[in-house]
């Protein structure tokens, strides 16, 4: 089958735009791109299957970008946008070229990593909507955002780390130059004056660098001490400050125990780890930031005088009349006053069967209007909608999780006091038991603190995390939270949601007692409708031309000549389905008994395998769904889950998770719907597919891409492996300390021994972590 020349999707036989295009929108977009002389785009691009296809959305309401434009004093207007639908570098080129060809543009620059677009233009020559119209016509979705509100904190922190890393690297390199000379001359070939000069130069380089680079650590250490506990940064800060101080003292008195190289190279190593760690999470963060974007959804408000206005949902007053077109997601809570349609509420409830909507039906924000336009009187907006209620439940649940303490900080709680006591005992021991002067005893005590300097300990966790999240990124799973991996490793129970998580989340045709001809006839009629069930029928039989002259009767079905395709009620059939699950369609021909086409939401292709593997590895697997018992049972049986619960509201899911937590179980929650968001936030750790609603992706610790469930398994495997590597690293650091601490206590450490042993321990830890990056794990 041919693929659309523009979006690359398969061209359905029903296409109104000929054999080369899947829809008129793509045809127009292709003409636009060619007309601009930019058709190289099509030969250069490569389509990224994890991104939404580049398909102009014909039903989307126009977004007014003007309110988001900032005009500067020099008359240059600026607009910041988030771009959805970007596939590869060719998209960057296309977008920038499309922008560049418009009058008045000063700058149009798309950041490929963060998918953020900045457009600047002279405000007297053009306006935002005209500039962005071609991009929308080609199929990119543009979401305006406020750069002030977004990720500034994290970005600034990351830049600070990078700057500190550069300074530390410079200092470490240069100080090492002098230290190596000093070590080489340690046999007496270097005179006192030269050594002293080298020490002074080292001090001149190292001390400013230490002051500058220690800030990120010192800040975090002070914050921890203020709140009355300790973290890994406390021993690091104390260690580096003591090393620098003691080295300076030795330099002043002309001694040989100057450890400037140790102080700065320790900072350099640690900053590399910190920076990579923060960068790995930055990617996941930017994926979840869409929630913050402004004006992503608009509501069409019908004014009393009959005019229409587009408003963001929070500006709509209760009592106003809102128009929801077929295919729109409804942005408000309200009551239907006019229109006959069906609503897909699966995001809110997990229920897969569309529910009918007639005048008087209550509708909730987040439902999808399927078949015909509805007029709705608004009863609640923004903060008081069901949707906002769910978000609030989620926030409450999330507070509990903030109390989790990272494993590195837990270790340092025991580690720091032990080391500091050791230092103290060393000093007291030398003073009491021998006749050494107090300066020398102090030197030995400080060298205990330096040699146990938590270099390996502080690297043990971040290095493993960076390697693990890199591996998971390649598998399509993004880690959002710093401690997600540690929490994931402790999981013993996996709870799945049904719709959209275990299943694909759209109906598929089931086998029934119809033959090929019946299917072809039904599909040719169904091709005229956008209703999900009709689309499913068409998917089952794709190469069928659409019958001409099909009439769609909203909320009922389709009519073609004297043949009708539609629901049970419309065709006047007796309800004999009883408990039969799933949506259905009937084909009614004159003088023939009506034929039933049944549909069901199918499990993901590898769901059975993933559940079986989880059970084999000894996890307890449960299914919690808001759908009806029959449907849930069918899916549970299909994938092999024995413990399931149907008809769960968001609060019920939370209750079940709390119950499991009280039994001492660590639960991984996998879910995608709005109704899962509170449970996702409450669970010990949570994952959600990238097709999930924004709220759920924000609540989840890990977001995975693609149509398969395998990333769940992969993430758990990597997390367990990472956990064991972290433990090994701590073990290695401990072994290293067992060897070096006696040396330090007995005063046998020289600067060379300190430098060699400390860098060896760091390298050993890093190499051990790198084992995670390749190879099979289980």
């Amino acid at each position: 089958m041919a693929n659309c020349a523009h979006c690359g999707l398969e061209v359905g036989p029903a296409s109104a735009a000929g054999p080369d295009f899947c829809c008129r929108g793509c045809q127009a977009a292709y003409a636009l791109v060619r007309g601009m002389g930019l058709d190289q785009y099509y030969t250069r691009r490569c389509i990224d299957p994890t991104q939404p296809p580049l398909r102009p959305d014909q039903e989307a309401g126009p977004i007014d970008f003007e309110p988001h434009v900032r005009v500067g004093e020099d008359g240059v207007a600026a607009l910041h946008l988030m771009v959805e639908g970007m596939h590869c570098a060719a998209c960057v080129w296309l977008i920038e070229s499309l922008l560049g060809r418009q009058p008045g543009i000063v700058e149009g620059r798309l950041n490929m990593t963060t998918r953020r677009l900045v457009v600047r233009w002279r405000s007297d020559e053009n306006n935002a909507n005209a500039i962005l119209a071609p991009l929308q016509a080609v199929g990119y979705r543009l979401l305006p955002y406020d750069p002030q509100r977004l990720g500034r904190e994290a970005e600034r922190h990351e830049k600070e780390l990078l700057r500190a890393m550069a300074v530390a690297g410079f200092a470490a390199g240069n100080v090492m130059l002098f230290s190596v000379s000093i070590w080489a001359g340690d046999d007496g070939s270097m005179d006192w004056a030269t050594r002293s000069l080298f020490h002074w130069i080292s001090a001149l380089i190292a001390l400013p660098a230490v002051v500058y680079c220690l800030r990120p650590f010192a800040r975090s250490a002070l914050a921890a001490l203020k709140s009355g506990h300790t973290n890994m940064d406390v021993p690091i800060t104390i260690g580096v400050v003591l090393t620098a101080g003691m080295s300076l003292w030795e330099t002043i008195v002309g001694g040989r125990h100057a450890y400037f190289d140790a102080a700065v190279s320790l900072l350099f190593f640690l900053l590399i780890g910190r920076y990579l760690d923060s960068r790995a999470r930055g990617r996941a963060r930017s994926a979840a930031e869409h929630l913050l974007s402004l004006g992503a959804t608009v509501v069409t408000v019908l004014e009393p005088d009959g005019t229409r206005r587009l408003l963001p949902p929070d500006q709509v007053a209760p009592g106003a009349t809102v128009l929801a077109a077929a295919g729109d997601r409804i942005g408000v809570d309200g009551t239907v006053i006019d229109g006959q349609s069906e609503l897909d509420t699966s995001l809110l409830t997990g229920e897969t069967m569309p529910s009918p909507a007639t005048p008087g039906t209550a509708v909730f924000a987040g439902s999808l209007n399927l078949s015909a336009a509805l007029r709705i009187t608004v009863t609640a907006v923004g903060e008081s909608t069901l949707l906002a209620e769910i978000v609030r439940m989620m926030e409450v649940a999330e507070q509990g999780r903030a109390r989790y303490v990272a494993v590195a900080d837990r270790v340092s709680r025991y580690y720091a006091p032990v080391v500091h006591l050791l230092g103290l005992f060393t000093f007291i021991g030398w003073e009491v038991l021998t006749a050494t002067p107090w300066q020398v005893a102090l030197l030995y005590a400080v060298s205990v603190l330096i040699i146990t300097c938590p270099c390996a300990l502080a690297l043990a966790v971040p290095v493993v995390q960076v390697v693990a999240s890199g591996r998971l990124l390649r598998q399509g799973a993004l880690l959002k939270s710093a401690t997600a991996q540690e929490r994931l490793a402790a999981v013993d129970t996996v709870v799945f949601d049904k719709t959209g998580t275990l299943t694909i989340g759209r109906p598929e045709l089931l086998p029934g007692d119809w033959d090929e001809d019946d299917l072809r006839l039904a599909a040719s009629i169904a091709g005229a409708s956008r209703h999900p069930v009709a689309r499913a029928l068409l998917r089952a039989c794709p190469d069928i031309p659409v019958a001409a002259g099909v009439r769609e009767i909203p909320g009922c079905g389709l009519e073609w000549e004297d043949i009708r395709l539609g629901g049970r009620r419309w065709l006047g059939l007796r309800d004999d389905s009883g408990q039969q699950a799933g949506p259905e369609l009937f084909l009614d021909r004159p003088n023939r008994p009506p034929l039933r086409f049944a549909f069901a939401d199918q499990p993901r292709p590898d769901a059975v395998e993933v559940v079986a593997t989880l059970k084999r590895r000894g996890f307890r697997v449960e299914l919690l769904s808001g759908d009806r018992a029959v449907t849930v049972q069918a899916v549970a049986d299909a994938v092999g889950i024995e413990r399931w619960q149907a008809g769960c509201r968001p609060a019920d899911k939370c209750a079940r998770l709390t119950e499991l937590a009280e039994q001492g179980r660590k639960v991984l929650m996998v879910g995608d719907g709005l109704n899962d968001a509170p449970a996702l936030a409450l669970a010990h750790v949570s994952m959600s597919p990238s097709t999930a609603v924004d709220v759920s992706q924000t609540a989840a610790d890990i977001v995975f891409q693609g149509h398969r469930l395998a990333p769940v398994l992969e993430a758990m495997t990597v997390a367990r492996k990472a956990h064991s590597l972290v433990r090994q690293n701590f073990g290695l650091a401990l072994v290293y300390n067992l060897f070096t601490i006696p040396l330090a206590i007995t005063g046998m450490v020289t600067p060379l021994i300190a430098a060699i042993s400390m860098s060896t321990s760091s390298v050993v830890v890093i190499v051990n972590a790198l084992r995670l990056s390749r190879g099979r794990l289980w």
Partner: protein
Amino acid sequence: MTNLLMLIPVALVLGAIGLVAFLWALKSGQFEDLDGAANRILFDYDDPPGKEGDHDHAGRKS
């Protein structure tokens, strides 16, 4: 000893030049889009035939 007096400042100045260059690159935003920069060199932002204008290089400037 005299060669030390020359070599040490030279080594330090060279290192400092590298550091300053890096900090300048960081400040001017060159590390903000590493993926984009790697791919950008493969595309030309030339004018379309028969169309001249001073705005056409917008994508490349800045």
